[in-house]
């Protein structure tokens, strides 16, 4: 039994990666498949140790390509299923993710991202933003993308990811990085509300007492693929309208607003507190959902503040989405670090500069 099942609402000191596992197990996920890659190996290791006792399945695949197709098969069976990987492994999964989006199959995919492109390095990075939010694989689809910035959110957003994936019949991604995955802090293991679980009348379980079912993404008949694409578009539009999540942090009276997600946002909170002590009105809008992106929130915020400071652990990816929501591009500043966490000092320095102050 996991510690979680034994005592819900308990404070647990653990790593972000393990909090993901606890959230998945709490949300009824009993099937995990994966392939080792740094810096997320705590996840398959936890699942290998705990899922069998819970009556579940852990299986280490021969590759990430096989992994995502194990996921496809288990998802088509109507079960909650998860995998985790990091940049290069997620790239290998893109084929399967496109098929799953096309076949309308839910699953939770965790990317504890590292720096790229290519083999890159194992340093924390947010360089997979484009890949995560713009589809990644072929054919034009979206993933629901959630970006936790604490161990608490690694837990709660994993539970949410399962609910959203099932609700919309589409894969959902947890986009973290090596820091939020590896850091340890206490979190409250709240109980999962099973009322959020939905029926799956499309699942393949053998056709006893009913017509046969197919789960597929091929549509060759007249207009069928066009109709299917508009159906998927409608779903993504609904997600855009109904599922945006963002945190407003110290935005009252702010003249400088940071826009950052995940670890970059976590560090920014410290810099904002320091800036406020110096009398600089800084705050932050933190997208929790990267798709759907908080477009309206960014648009409204841009009207109120002097400058939007986008901070990312890459050379600038989300900043493109911020620009798209903000008419005055000359009021957008960017601070990027492709392969490291920006320090609070670095962020504070940039805030001071934008406020016209010297440090």
């Amino acid at each position, binding site marked *: 039994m996991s510690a979680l099942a034994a005592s819900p609402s308990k404070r647990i000191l653990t790593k972000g990666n393990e909090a993901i596992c606890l959230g998945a197990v709490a949300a009824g996920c009993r*099937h995990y498949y994966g392939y080792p890659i740094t810096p997320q190996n705590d996840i398959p290791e936890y699942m290998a140790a705990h899922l069998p006792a819970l009556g579940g399945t852990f299986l280490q695949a021969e590759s990430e390509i096989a992994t995502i197709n194990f996921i496809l098969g*288990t998802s*088509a*069976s109507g079960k909650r299923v998860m995998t985790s990987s990091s940049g290069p492994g997620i790239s290998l999964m893109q084929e399967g993710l496109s098929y799953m989006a096309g076949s309308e199959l839910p699953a939770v995919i965790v990317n504890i991202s590292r720096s790229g492109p290519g083999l890159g390095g194992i340093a924390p990075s947010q360089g997979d933003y484009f890949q995560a939010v713009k589809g990644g694989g072929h054919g034009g689809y979206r993933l629901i993308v959630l970006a936790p910035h604490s161990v608490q959110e690694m837990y709660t957003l994993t539970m949410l990811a399962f609910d959203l994936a099932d609700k919309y019949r589409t894969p959902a991604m947890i986009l973290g990085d090596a820091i939020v995955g590896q850091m340890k802090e206490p979190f409250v293991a709240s109980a999962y509300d099973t009322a959020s679980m939905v029926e799956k009348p499309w699942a393949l379980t053998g*056709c006893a007492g009913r017509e046969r079912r197919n789960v597929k993404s*091929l549509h060759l008949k007249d207009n069928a693929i066009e109709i299917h694409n508009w159906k998927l578009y409608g779903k993504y539009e609904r997600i855009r309208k109904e599922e945006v999540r963002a945190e407003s942090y110290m935005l009252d009276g702010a003249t400088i607003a940071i826009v950052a997600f995940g670890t970059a946002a976590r560090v920014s909170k410290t810099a904002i507190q320091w800036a406020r002590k110096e009398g600089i009105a800084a705050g932050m809008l933190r997208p929790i959902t990267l798709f759907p992106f908080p477009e309206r929130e960014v648009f409204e915020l841009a009207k109120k503040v002097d400058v939007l400071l986008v901070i990312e652990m890459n050379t600038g990816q989300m900043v493109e989405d911020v620009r798209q929501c903000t008419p005055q591009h000359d009021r957008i500043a960017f601070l990027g670090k492709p392969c490291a966490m920006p320090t609070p000092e670095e962020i504070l320095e940039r805030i001071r500069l934008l406020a016209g102050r010297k440090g």
Partner: protein
Amino acid sequence: MSAPGKVGFSKPVYTRPRSLVDVKSHFCPGCHHGTIHKIVAECIDRYGLREKTIGVACVGCAVFLYDYIDVDVVESPHGRAPAVATGVKRAQPDKFVFTYQGDGDLAAIGTSEIIHAANRGENLSVIFVNNTTYGMTGGQMAPTTMLGQKTSTTPYGRDFRGDGYPIKMAELLSGLEGTSYSARVAVSTPAQIRKAKEAVRKAFEMQIAGMGFSIVEFLSTCPTNWGMKPLEAQKRVLGEMSEYFPLGVFKERKQADFA
């Protein structure tokens, strides 16, 4: 049914299998998919599996499995059927799971998935249709294309010096510990069809008994892409193809490793 008292046809001995959908075949004249589908459907019926089966269709001509076999079917990406089937079987170990794959699918892009599914001894059955070419994409070279065979991407004939040799998958997979049954059959004569059905039955029995991974390789035709009339295509299977790809059972496990 015949009238009472009459000798003869009082009991039907040859009917459409319950698991075969009553539709016209869209396959090219002389193609063997229809016969192979029928054998699969008959074996599903024989063991009463229709209501607990999940089929895995791949890409290429084989993808239309779900138009012909009256069971739940999930479609997989090119070559990944053994991985998708693994995901289905691990989630539903009480169900009957089979894949239906062509040679480009199983022996080229999906080599990794088939070898590892076999090696894990996944308790599922694979129907492998080898017609030595990529059918749906227009007759390009497959890993099973014969030496000297002209295809749209071996216009001067397959040459082992650049293109390698045709892969013998049934033999290759029989060498893996996790494989419980591996056989190669053909359906070019009534006698071969009977033997093919025996092989599929045996493969299905392996899964039912929990013995692990089973595969039946079918030598099949593609008259359209071979540029042959159906009868010429049959002759090619009976001659050249059967010589290089011998028919027979390459492995038959008697007892499960993990009872």
